């Protein structure tokens, strides 16, 4: 029975949906990577994603304009990110708890807006797959990698861009410096506050995008608690990926492949209870966290707010 999983068709299916499903993890995880590298743990990702997902869905539902939907999701995410930045950087609130506050806020707000403005679960026509000429014609693997929707391509493009910005630009250097030794960065004239504001707001933007990728590209629906823990997993993936964009990519792929495998187990009706299949990714995350923290050290100033001595 288990052998049914290992036919070429099923494996390709797992690969295809795995690559698609990694999209929200990539956006949210990369955004969170920048926040954490600068020393701010944003646990509100889940709430930001929900608000972004609703904002995008509602806009597309009303106007039919996908790009406008994306823009509204970005704005909503930016606002949530800015609020998180203000609370954790300016007011120096405990980051773990304030993030949970923002999670509850986003969970409640998106539910509230959903119930008052939509009421029922509907669908929209979201981003459609775009085949890349020539590449998508490659036999077998072409359609898997090069016939996805634009937000999926965007997520994978984001990884090298983020890695470049983090490791090869002045801004990236500042982010890392602020997250490792804020005092030293500050003494060299880098504004710790400004850098952190930028990264946390940016994290909000990418969380908003991650939400939009669910509601107007992958699932094309909105319902209460649409993300159901996905944002928290994205935060875990940052740990798993050792605070590096490529590491986050590896984690996101591993995670989404297990998720896809789980979906196929259900589709094929294998004698594994679906609940255990759904459980698998979460167990895997815990194991991954255990392995990951033995390998890399988190940014020294993570969750520590900065006060200039004097």
């Amino acid at each position, binding site marked *: 029975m288990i052998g049914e999983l290992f036919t070429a068709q099923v494996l390709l299916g797992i690969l295809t949906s795995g690559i698609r499903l990694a999209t929200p993890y990539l956006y949210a995880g990369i955004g969170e990577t920048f926040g954490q590298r600068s020393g701010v743990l944003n*646990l509100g990702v889940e*709430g930001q994603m929900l608000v972004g997902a609703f904002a995008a869905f509602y806009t597309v539902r009303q106007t039919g304009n996908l790009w406008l939907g994306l823009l509204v999701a970005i704005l909503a995410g930016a606002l949530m990110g800015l*609020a998180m930045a203000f*609370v954790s950087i300016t*007011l*120096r*609130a*405990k980051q*773990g*708890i*304030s993030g*949970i*506050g*923002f*999670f*509850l*806020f*986003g*969970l*409640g*707000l998106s*539910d*509230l807006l959903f*119930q*008052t403005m939509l009421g029922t679960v509907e669908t929209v026509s979201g981003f459609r797959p775009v085949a890349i000429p020539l590449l998508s014609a490659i036999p077998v693997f072409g359609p898997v990698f090069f016939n996805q929707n634009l937000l999926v391509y965007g997520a994978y493009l984001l990884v090298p861009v983020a890695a470049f910005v983090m490791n090869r630009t002045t801004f990236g250097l500042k982010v890392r410096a602020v997250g490792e030794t804020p005092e030293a960065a500050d003494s060299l004239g880098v504004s710790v506050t400004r850098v952190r504001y930028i990264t946390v707001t940016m994290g909000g933007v990418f969380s908003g995008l991650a939400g939009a990728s669910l509601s107007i590209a992958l699932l094309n629906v909105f319902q*209460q*608690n649409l993300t*159901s*823990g996905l944002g*928290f*997993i994205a*935060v*875990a993936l940052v*740990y798993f990926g050792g605070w590096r964009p490529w590491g986050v990519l590896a984690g996101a792929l591993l995670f989404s492949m297990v998720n896809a495998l789980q979906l196929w187990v259900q589709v094929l009706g294998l004698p594994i*209870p679906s*609940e*255990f299949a*759904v*459980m698998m990714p*979460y*167990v895997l*995350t*815990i194991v991954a*966290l*255990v392995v990951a*923290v*033995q390998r890399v050290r988190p940014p020294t100033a993570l969750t520590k707010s900065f006060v200039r001595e004097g």
Partner: protein
Amino acid sequence: MKQRLKSYLSSQVIDALLPVFATLAALLVGAFMLLALGANPFVAYGALIEGAFGSINSIADTLVRATPLLFVGVGICIAFRGGVINIGGEGQFVAGALCATLVGLSFPDGPALLVVPAALLAGTFGGAVWGGIPGLLKAHFNVNEILSTIMMNQIAVQGMNFLLIGPLIDPVQLERASRIPQTARMSPAFDLPRLVPTRLHLGTFIAVVMAVLVYLLLWRTTLGYRIRAVGLNREASRYAGINVPRHIALALALSGALAGFAGAVQIFGVNFRMFTDGSATGFTGSAGFHGIVAALFGQLHPLGTIPAAFFFGGLLVGANRMQRAVQVPAALIVTLNGLVVVFVVSTELWRQQRTRRRLAEQTAEYEESLVETTASVASAGTEQGGNV
């Protein structure tokens, strides 16, 4: 001196009232949201208060709703005082309820006086295990407990779904086509005593007693002292010879134990069976998250959590009445709870600064009085010397 005492007292009063201000601010934001949704905030909040505290029955309902928040919240106090953040209340609640249900269903004809305490104990144990696993991972592998407790929530929910659709499903449901995922009803002999005609049950009183016990544990026992010491400064505690990993794991396990107890009480006091709608919230009513709000509101003090849980229980009960009165979804209250958390942690810094300033002032005063006493003693000495 009297005036100083007065200003000292009033500043402390302000500190204690900060969460209240935070809540008022959240309610104010809520009022604007209500306006934006086309509802009259006065009518809405009026209905909310009426629904929460308007009659004996509604007060009883509020107390019943507050019970799991109090258990979970008191547990949260232990974890936070121990320097670890427990977001796993939901999963621990579910694990506790499952263990209690198993015991209750296994001995349907047993004497209630034996079975119910055993079931409550089993629930406590289940919650302790579910909180203890992230605790051990934190203590020995330095795994971030926020993330691991969240993952444990999801695992518990899937475990619950599996058991309630499969092995534990009510035999009656098995015969029907609907197959609602719930267990059989517990033997009515096991129901916790109620204050008829209301729904208020014994669990509420146990919760209050438990809050007092946890207060005593944290501030009157060596174990509690050590947990708090580890929470304040791990390095100093290690230096003082405290086994830091053990107390980190213990703090999370105890925290989970209380959430598990809450789940068990929910079975025997309120639902009399376990059921699921596929998510955690269906059974827990998000007690694991609202308990955090209550604990923060009570300034992470078990005794402060008692009125806090009552207040938030009231909000949650009243939200349904509000929904009916002005057609605004009860989800508004979840939004406001999130804001309360954000506002409370945002004012924390201000409170700390005030406390520090107050301590500095006290020290300065003390030093001043010392100088004065020394001077007067010295001058008295010279006078005496002069006389001799």
